């Protein structure tokens, strides 16, 4: 009886997630009347604005990942090594983006960095891009920090640091030759999550008026019928691809697990 309920719950859950997905996929294939076709996909992929916005978001995602790694790895490392008492507070701060809506953050940015402020980042395209990257990094922070912190827990960073120091290494060498390589799997999972977040993000990009993939999806959805469905399926595929890559790198990690 227990088993029946368990299977029942699973079935309902699957229906809840899969039915809309199937419906959407089905719909996206019906652009040509009466037959299944990939016309909607062809239209979407052939749209120069799709190519532009998608490229923009991919580049932004890469910069966000780079910035996030350079921010989070040294911070998490230093906190674990020298300020372990501060860990709960740091963890709390990194979780804040989950409870503060993106729209609040972006309005804060616009107020602080508008053209008449002391640092008018929104006054130039590069400045706005940088601001958007900071915003993305903030949104990704909870995931990135957790991933890296968990990765650091699996190695004895205090002893490894001292071993490296006694061999003459300075902080940069320790970070890039010892710490980063040993949490690479964790960093990669954080990176793929960041990628998925940036590709789908709408609020910040829209309000900062940057040509990102999220606002493009919204625009297309408001004006077309079949293409948005195709686009949604593509976005889904990207996200799931990222999750699959996380699984893959965790499975193929080598040498990072010491038995001690």
């Amino acid at each position, binding site marked *: 009886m227990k088993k029946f309920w368990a299977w029942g719950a699973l079935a309902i859950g699957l229906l809840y997630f899969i039915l809309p997905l199937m419906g959407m996929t089905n719909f996206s294939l019906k652009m040509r009347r009466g037959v299944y076709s990939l016309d909607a996909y062809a239209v979407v992929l052939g749209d120069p604005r799709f190519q532009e916005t998608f490229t923009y978001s991919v580049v932004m995602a890469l910069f966000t990942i780079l910035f996030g790694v350079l921010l989070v790895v040294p911070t998490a490392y230093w906190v674990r090594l020298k300020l372990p008492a501060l860990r709960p507070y740091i963890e709390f701060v990194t979780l804040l983006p989950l409870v503060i809506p993106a729209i609040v953050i972006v309005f804060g940015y616009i107020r602080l960095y508008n053209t008449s402020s002391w640092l008018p980042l929104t006054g130039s395209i590069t400045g706005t891009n940088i601001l958007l990257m900071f915003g993305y990094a903030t949104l990704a922070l909870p995931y990135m920090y957790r991933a890296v912190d968990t990765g650091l827990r699996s190695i004895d960073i205090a002893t490894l640091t001292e071993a*490296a120091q006694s061999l003459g290494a300075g902080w940069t060498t320790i970070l890039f030759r010892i710490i980063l390589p040993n949490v690479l799997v964790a960093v990669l999972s954080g990176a793929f999550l960041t990628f998925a977040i940036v590709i789908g993000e709408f609020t910040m990009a829209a309000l900062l008026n940057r040509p990102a993939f999220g606002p493009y999806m919204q625009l297309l959805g408001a004006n077309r019928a079949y293409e948005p469905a195709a686009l949604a399926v593509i976005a889904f595929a990207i996200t799931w691809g990222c999750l699959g890559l996380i699984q893959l790198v965790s499975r193929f990690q080598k040498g990072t697990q010491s038995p001690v």
Partner: protein
Amino acid sequence: MSFLTLSSIQKSFGPVQVVKDFNMSIEKGEFVSFLGPSGCGKTTVLRMIAGFETPSGGAIAIDGKSQMNLRPNQRNIGMVFQAYALFPNMNVAENVAFGLKVAGRPKAEIDARVKEMLGLIKLDHLADRYPYQMSGGQQQRVALARALAPKPQVLLLDEPLSALDAKIRVSLREEIRMIQQQLGITTVFVTHDQEEALSISDRIVVMNAGKADQIGTPAEIYNRPATRFVAGFVGTLNLIEAKVVDPAANRVSIGDQGVTLREPLGTVKAGDMVSLALRPEAGSIAPDAKGDTALSGAVVSTNFLGSVIRTRMKVGDSIISFDMFNSPGLVPPAVGETVTLRFTAGDLLVISD
């Protein structure tokens, strides 16, 4: 002129003084062990030499050069940790090469040195292995090679054998000693295992609650413990409480049996209590011995330890244990039986405290 000098080193963590006025001069090429129970401050002293802790007072110098204002990575010191601490992302050769790479040595020199080091620890065939693919003993040998590769002035080892099984512990300590002598490197070895310290050191520092109780060669430490603590910690020395009978004649009584010591008793008067030490291997059973250099008592227990049989007997308020070499014909005394132990007057040492 000694090579590594620690002068009046002190260290406090908050209100707790962990190292108190620690003095030590180590000669070039010498192998010195810090021996003491857990928590007595051995690691803290070692970490101050390496630069990981800053002394609250005192001075550290290597080859006449003060180390006080040098960061750990500016000191020329090799360190081996109990937990091996090999870099998990690097294979054996890369681990050994790390210090040389950091120092910016040319590639040809690094390759040659790595090869030499792997030959020294006899692990040439495992150069491509990663740490997680090796046993503890192999990892610790790699850690030793990694520490030695940049030719440090001083090698520090913090209980490097504690995590290994008994057999490997013995063979690796001999290997460490051999490599140390071969290279002539000044070495400080921390351990809580007295047998380990006795077997491989030139000199031993017995540490007790943050200070050095006694510094001496293994034989001096074992045969002539300076304090009750050293006597109790090193070896399985018997500590016997005795009452002074005649200070001028060096006569004391243990329980109701009188003995005469060879050593002067010092400034005591009749009726005072003194502590004596007797090594378990010093005496032998002699049924008809009597007088000044024999003690009789009832057997409390006998333990078969392989090459020796250890018997404990009660004399007065003290328990005295003594060892007999095992031989096929030997019948150990039964519990409750009265036996007489004969020794020479010089075997009974006076512990000053």
